């Protein structure tokens, strides 16, 4: 797996594309988050908090600072979206070695700064490593979340198996290959299929899986605070 580029901290404003799925209006934001205006809800997926710590614990030297930036980006997204409800769409943490005191503490402090926010975690496959999340994080957890006709799940396979369509999911860390020859780039993207939407992984130090756009209804690549459709018609 190669990695997509352009996971830097976004600028002042946040560009977005508007689509609608199951009659719910969705804002696909250039920072990789998804906003639902009708219930003031912001969705971010696959944060993998403490991924760096997990690597270090295994003897692979990854520098610190990634979590800090991740939370900074999250703050920025939450503030520009002016949302009242934040949803983590699974894989909030990376693995059991990720919950170091520093990570717990950083997240707790972030939570304290955003006390009024309602925060829900839709459980993902990585989250099973944790029996109970720290109380200081003030999370509600659930296997899936319902917004009108739209279901929010982590893994697209779960969505399909449970016949939950139309649904919004994460898990895949979707990316798309654009450009030809020397201009070829791999970018994170929102992948829109007829009955579901895949949200990109939020924040730095994330891998990406290149998806074919063949079966997609549309594909929105993001980089440097830009979002644009790259599906060839």
């Amino acid at each position, binding site marked *: 797996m190669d990695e997509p580029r352009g996971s830097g901290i976004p600028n002042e404003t946040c560009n977005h594309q508007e689509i609608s799925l199951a009659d719910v209006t969705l804002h696909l934001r250039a920072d990789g988050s998804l906003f639902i205006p009708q219930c003031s809800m912001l969705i971010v997926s696959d944060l993998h908090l403490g991924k760096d710590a997990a690597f270090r614990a295994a003897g692979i030297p990854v520098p610190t600072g990634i979590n800090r930036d991740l939370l900074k980006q999250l703050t920025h997204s939450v503030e520009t979206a002016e949302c009242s409800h934040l949803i983590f769409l699974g894989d909030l943490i*990376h693995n059991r070695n990720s919950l170091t005191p520093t990570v717990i503490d950083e997240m707790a402090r972030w939570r304290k700064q955003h006390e009024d926010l309602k925060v829900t975690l839709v459980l993902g496959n990585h989250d099973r490593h944790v029996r109970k999340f720290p109380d200081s994080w003030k999370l509600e957890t659930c296997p899936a979340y319902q917004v009108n006709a739209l279901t929010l799940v982590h893994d697209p396979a779960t969505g399909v198996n449970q016949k939950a369509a139309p649904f919004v999911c994460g898990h895949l860390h979707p990316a798309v290959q654009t450009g030809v020859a020397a201009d070829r780039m791999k970018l994170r993207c929102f992948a829109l299929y007829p009955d579901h939407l895949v949200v990109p992984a939020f924040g730095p130090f994330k891998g990406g899986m290149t998806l074919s756009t063949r079966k997609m209804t549309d594909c929105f690549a993001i980089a440097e605070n830009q979002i644009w459709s790259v599906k060839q018609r």
Partner: protein
Amino acid sequence: MERRTPSYESNSNSKKYVSRKQIMSIKLVSDWMKEKERKPFPFQRAVWKAMMDGKSGLLHSPTGTGKTLAVWLGALARWNAQEEDPVTRETSTFSSPRRSNRNAAEPIRVLWLTPLRALAADTMLALQEPTDQLKFPWTVERRTSDSSSTLKTKQKNRLPSCLITTPESLSILLTYRKTHSQFKSLQVVVLDEWHELMASKRGVQAELCLARLRQLNPHLITWAVSATIGNVEQAMQTALGPRDQNGVVVKAPARRKLSMRSVIPKKIERFPWAGHMGLKSVPAVVEAIDAVGSSLVFTNTRSQAEKWYSAILHERPDWAGKMGVHHGSLERKTRTWVERELDAGNLKCVVCTSSLDLGVDFFPVQQVLQIGSPKGIARLMQRAGRSGHYPGGKSQLVFVPTHALELVELAAAKDYLKQQRIEDRVPLMGCLDLLAQHVVSISCGNPFDESQLFKEVKSTHAYQDLSETQWEWVLNFVRRGGDSLQAYPDFQRVVENDGRYEVKDARTSRMQRMSVGTIPSDNEMQVRYMKGGRLGKIEERFISRLKPGDKFLFAGRTLKLVMTRDMTVWVRRAKGQVAALPRWYGGRMPLSSELSEAVREKLGEAARGKFTGPEMRAIKPLMALQAAWSLIPDENTLLIEQVKTRDGFHIFVYPFEGRLVHEGLAAVIAWRIAQIRPITFSTTINDYGIELLSPTVPPLKEAMERGLFTSVDLVNQIDKCMNAGELDRRQFRDIAKIAGLVQGGFPGAGKSARQLQASSDLFFDVFKEYDPENLLLKQARQEVLEYQLESTRLATALDRIANCRIEITEPPKPSPLAFPILVDRLRMKISSEKLADRIARLTQQFEVTAKKHHSKSNP
């Protein structure tokens, strides 16, 4: 490296052997050779003498055999002469071999390092014969990643008297405490095919291990065995370490004649037909193969090997079962079968890549065919030397050009071969990734003292200039994960205790052993039949483009993709010819600077109207067209062509310096032109020149006035273009693997191991952002500059260009010289199946223009 080395040429046995035992031992081995009807050559005696004197050195020869025996018998004789109770003529019968008991045999005496594990098996047979027949109480064993675990355990407890292994396996052996101390009894290290190893990171790994072994036994002698290269002196000093000033160079003369000819197509089209891999010449190649008993067909890439194999088989279906394909991505079993059958004389031909460049000689091979550019004079010689190993045989090479201009290359190579001007192999310097790996390895085997190890490391050629700061950084890297100022909490690989460094954690040692053997390669996937048989490995990037049901060519078969799961590509046999061709993203070899120079000289001759030899005469019409449309550049001319086509504005520059230099040069000149005003270029390069394509008119004249080709501020500017480019990111891949960032995971570790896998690209981004001073990043940049872009060679090239006359022409269409570059660009854009059609159309289109032009100038 100007020091004069004492010459041990053939008959300089002036100094007498000191002891009776020495004389007796030498006589013993030479008698054994005579018994085998192989009279010792003077060069072999010279090696024996030098070894008896306790000297290290290097033995080289252009082709031919006898190098192995020279070094091996020398080592045996030296050991024998030092024994209390030596083996004598009376005690050895020269027949009825007797194997020695493992535990009663001699401890480790000789270490034989080979670059390819494939060579180990054959080397073992070659070494075993004299040992057994002379009744030496020795055991000869090999240890590679293929060895069984029972044998590996036995070897850990007691090493054989002679161990044949690879640098990786040696490095792993040094991580075991028990094995580490056994190396004290080692007397001789042999570095086989040293020319292959020395210019690579594995060579550096060998240097580091050798430094350790010398520490354990200061009287250890080192012998490197090499093909002839331009810098034998330096090669020797790299093997011996800069401190040993008594090394000797022994030259073994070539014993076989070499003949070369080219397949020249009956009709040379006006335009060089690049792109379809030279398949036009298949009938001629088949004819050449048919004419002799057995042939090796060398190609430059694995894809080309696959394509050619199927093309030849298509032409001659009756050769099924009498042909083989051989390249590095095929399953070991398949390759062994091909080698065995070839050796037995059962194969008509084998299509192969550099995977068969080295190794034991296959006696039945009568001729070698080289498809496409030989890239270098040494390489051409090496490949040609793979044929004619039967008594009275001579090496025969048939050159098959894939485009007309390659004929110039062969003509040029012939010239330089006559003058014995052969390329250098340049050893690497100061790779911190390897050093970090080595430090962890050593501290697994034995706690070490920091200052002592520093001295030891500095005694190698690669690290002789290592600074204390760099050393400090490496120590910090293995201990804390990075610079001491940078926080890497929870990280620990090596523990410091009172100035002694050690790996305490068994898991770390295990991980280390796993990762030492990793040969950097892209994500590869196993290819297997649905029934289970393994075929080899293929890159993930290629497979990801296919969908189930798609056909592709691999291991000489047409396969249908069934599914991909768990890093395995499941396939079925398929029928039919239409199939995708796998691509491996291995580095493409550049034209060597010697061959580049030779090509410039040949073109110079052409410019003056001189066409000698069949190759040059064949391309005369093509050169005439080049001269009519543009001009033929001679040695002192740099040709620039400006052409406008439907695609945009092309600038072609022809420095003839090889693709690596061109890659850097293209980036620099594109950057320099773009400084004048905003413009976008897409660049393409090949071994001859550069193409810059832009949608708007580039300000070339202005750029020339500002010094487009100056070498002033070069490194700085490359650095700037590289920030935009992706080069150091690419280079970082290998570094990350060697330094232990990217982990393969344990066998059977399953899915949870994947949580600890991130690709080097990701590490690159993270380091850049969060630890920009990381020396591994700097190393990546430096390696890009030195080895990837050959910045030294680039500067030399620019200095040469500075003395050139620059000619700018405006041909009506891309000229014959431009055509191969143009096709290269197409190759990147469009899918492989339709390429042939597209080229055909292009050729046709150009032919029409050429005819019009022709009729206009000659009414």
